[in-house]
């Protein structure tokens, strides 16, 4: 009887192990799905504040995780502002002052145009598997989709969030929800990804809502209005000279 129980438990354990991929494997699949050689997209960033909402539209060209160039298109106050990211450096060009300034050091921790995102959130291009130890903690339903629930704990010291929880669609390998925690365990931010569409053969969320859980408000909504993968992007865009053009 004892041997039979052990055998059944072993079979169950092995079968479970074979059905669910490992946490690192899930993250790798997510990265494969989400990353591309390059992409060009237009987006709307809707910042919900206490006194109403404002929408900022922009067009972004990016190559991998290391290079990106964004031009803000509206509202008129922000139109013409350009942002260039090269590796770990970030420059912003403001047309009103006709000046390019580098955002570095502690300035990176400031909010991007009053949104729930910081420059640092946009700059951290390290792969999650490089800086976090991932653990599969179960399977849950998110927005009627089956997801793997992963818990990521920082394995390096210089990370903004000590712990994360990510819910990844079991079929499409797209993250549908992410929660960011403080060292004390306090939930700090929640990101919800939705409107997943198949674009150029890959599943991609086109609406992302960033919500700072410590303050009131509806957070910041990021909508991709158009996206193209693996385009030909001129090399000169990723130079400081392109900011003033």
């Amino acid at each position, binding site marked *: 009887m004892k041997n039979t129980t052990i055998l059944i438990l072993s079979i169950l354990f092995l079968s479970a192990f074979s059905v669910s991929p490992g946490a690192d494997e899930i993250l790798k699949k997510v990265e494969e799905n989400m990353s591309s050689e390059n992409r060009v997209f237009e987006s709307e960033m809707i910042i919900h504040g206490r006194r109403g909402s404002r929408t900022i539209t922009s067009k972004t060209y990016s190559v991998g995780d290391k290079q990106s160039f964004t031009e803000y298109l509206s509202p008129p106050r922000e139109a013409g502002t350009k942002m260039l990211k090269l590796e770990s450096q970030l420059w912003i060009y403001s047309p009103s002052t006709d000046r390019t300034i580098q955002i570095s050091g*502690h300035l990176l921790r400031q909010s991007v145009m009053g949104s729930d995102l910081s420059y640092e959130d946009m700059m951290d291009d390290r792969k999650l598997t490089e800086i976090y130890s991932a653990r599969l903690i179960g399977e849950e339903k998110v927005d009627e989709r089956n997801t793997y629930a992963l818990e990521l704990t920082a394995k390096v010291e210089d*990370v903004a969030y000590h712990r994360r929880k990510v819910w990844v669609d079991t079929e499409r390998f797209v993250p549908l929800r992410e929660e960011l925690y*403080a060292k004390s365990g306090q939930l700090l931010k929640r990101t919800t990804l939705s409107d997943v569409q198949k674009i150029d053969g890959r599943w991609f969320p086109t609406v992302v809502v960033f919500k700072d859980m410590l303050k009131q408000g509806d957070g910041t909504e990021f909508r991709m209005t158009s996206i193209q993968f693996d385009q030909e992007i001129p090399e000169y865009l990723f130079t400081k000279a392109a900011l003033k053009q």
Partner: protein
Amino acid sequence: MLAFKLAFKNIFGAGFRTFLNIAVLSFAFVIIIWHNGVIDGWNQQARRDTIEWEIGQGQLWHPDFDPLDYLSYPDAHAPLSAPIKALVDEGQLAPILITQASAFPQGRMQGVILKGISPQQHILKIPSSKLETSGDEAPALIGTRMAKDIKMKEGDQLLLRWRDKNGTFDALEITIAGVFNCNVPTIDGGQIWLPLERLREMTGLPGEATILVAGDGYGGGGQPPWIFKNQDYLLADLDMIIQSKKGGGAIIYGLLLIIALLAIFDTQVLSIFRRQKEIGTYIALGMTRWQVVGIFTVEGSVYSILAILLGALYGGPLLWYSAKVGWAMPAASTDMGISIAERIYPVYGVGLILFTVLLVVLTATIVSFLPARKIARLNPTDALKGKVQ
């Protein structure tokens, strides 16, 4: 002496006109003393409060610390060396660790400065002993301005979010252990005081500090890498504000003084015009022209002496009463970012009174002399005849 006798006789002879001149000048005299007394009282109170609540006998700053640049705070900290620790243990220095954070009162995000101070320190008047705790709760002290800003009171809880030395976010709910009332906004507005060891633990900076406040026993001087900032340096901003306030006030009472002096000037011009026969008689009796100029100049000066006496008569009790009950500052003045007590008590120093007396007498003498110079050019015969020249 003759000049003074004649001056008093002529002045009292002028009746109501004299009284008006003296009254206006005395008013300017009293206002000058009162205004400068208020500024001096404010200066003394602000310096005393700033020393007692914020700067002590000077401060030792980390080389990267810039109080006006909050982005400098994350890099401005260093461990305390053995000699510094010994001075801290002797109570000569009080270490303070400073970092930036966000507070979330009623779901609003507000940038705040966290300051860690030892609950056992006695150098500053901040009631840090309220930060003593035995349990796990994180006690915090805030000033009345901060309490008003974030709508918090003693016993309330407040959620804080900050980054440790590696930039990793952390969050904690603190309990307001006390709300202190002080006149120094630079230790109050936008600031939360925590126990030093707790803040060191929260930021991952054990044994470190951003600044050290010197107490009475501290000998002065820097202790590498710490740079010593003395009281003169730390009070320089306050001194500049006081000077600018003095300058602004000088314009107001300067105008008042000019009005009074103008009245004396007019009176002098009129009396020289009307008393030409008298002037001619003086010269005919053997006085030199400049002696006559002297008589008229002294007449003008006597206005100032009488004004000072009148000012002392009614201004003395008024100024004494004002120094006793103080001058209540409007509530909004506490938000101006400079040290202002709820009530300012004017201080009238001997130097201030002597300066004002000298100012009034000198200026009155000058404006009396200017029209009197005309006498020196008078033809005595024509003057005797009363011919207009």
